[in-house]
């Protein structure tokens, strides 16, 4: 069967890019398989674990269940867009400093949820931090160090 492709255009980590996609592709797969950015992880593939979190027009979204077409013409930021000019984002540094990374699989998603929160609200309360990352599952750390790392940047 002939599948029609669509030229998807997004501003990805500040740069305009185009990819030929199948209209039924999910954004996470387009980012990983068509645009080569494998920092975005796929865990549950059903919008539960948050490993695939990216920032779409300023808001954290689960990219594994987001039709890529929804991102057409929009700004997308992935974990690859956090470090600037060889300098880690303060959140990335805080995750390292506080030992908030163990196996690391959830880390890109957590960083993007935290970044979206801090971009909107630079001084969140602990409850607001917990609320913002409640959709990111981590099976290693028990969350304490993750919350501490975000708090370190939020202060």
């Amino acid at each position, binding site marked *: 069967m002939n599948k029609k492709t669509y030229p998807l255009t997004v501003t990805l980590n500040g740069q305009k890019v185009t990819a030929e996609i199948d209209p039924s592709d999910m954004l996470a797969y387009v980012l990983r398989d068509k645009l080569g950015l494998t920092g975005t992880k796929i865990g549950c593939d059903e919008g*539960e674990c*948050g490993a695939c979190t990216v920032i779409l027009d300023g808001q954290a979204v689960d990219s594994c269940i987001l*039709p890529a077409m929804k991102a057409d013409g929009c700004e997308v930021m992935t974990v690859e867009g956090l470090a600037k000019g060889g300098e880690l984002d303060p959140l990335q540094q805080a995750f390292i400093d506080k030992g908030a990374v163990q196996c690391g699989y959830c880390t890109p998603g957590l960083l993007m*949820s935290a970044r979206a929160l801090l971009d909107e609200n630079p001084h969140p309360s602990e409850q607001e931090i917990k609320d913002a990352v409640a*959709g990111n599952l981590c099976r290693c750390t028990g969350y304490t160090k993750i919350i501490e790392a975000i708090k370190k940047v939020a202060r």
Partner: protein
Amino acid sequence: MWKEYLFPASVEEAVAMLAQWDGRARLIAGGTDLVLEFNEGKREADCLVDITRIPELKEITQQGDTITVGAAVTFRQLDDSLLIRQRATVLAEAAHTVGSRQIRNVATLGGNVVSALPAADGSLGLRALGAEAEVADIQGRRWLPLEELFESPGQSKIDASAQVLTALRFKALSSREGSAYERLARRRALALPILACGTAVGLSDDGRTFQWARVSLGPVAPVCFCAHCTEEFLIGAEVSPETMARAGEIALSESNPRSSLLRACKEYRQEMIKVLVRRGLERAVAKCQAPLSAE
């Protein structure tokens, strides 16, 4: 999976696109339920018509006493809206309990209604507010009581291959009225409710009796449920701990929850109906006495 994905610019265009595809296209809003249903093979369509770029569907507006919420308004928008928090608290609280931040940023109120789950938080909040829904199709638009949209678990009476749910509207609560949403789940995010209850009440001028009340519950019936006997009992009843406890008993008697392997047994849900209805009424009453902050 679908082969085409379209963004209509208006409701009329969306309806025309659906008509053109003659049953083979389906509407999509946030897609947080729908994409999973496609992945599980429960749905099929050749084309998706995405309504989330239609400006009028993304607005929360107030005209006089009526609040209108566009069907593509996200749970995040509801959660953040001062108007909804103050004048339709039950809906703001319900919105906050949905999924996770990532889901609330995408999932829409209209999608929640059309997904037609008996414990849909958005629908339970709306039912407590006595909401109406506007449906558009090739014949035009019309307002219907919300309860007329639910067919069976997961099945809406709205035909998403031909019709568009465009808006939900309800009366803004005044200073002598209050509402609240109670929810019990295995965790506080990304968990469907074991039981959820929306309450809205209006009190007499002296604050001593209920003038009216609405109590929504889920999942206690095949569709999003309103406890009408409980509501009737409360009209004219004294505002007291005894009345609110009795309301919980009556709500239990008119509900029929089932056992769920994943969430809770019927017996536990029955016990919790009494607790959630009482707590919801207490909090809704407390909000009536709280002064409204500046609008």
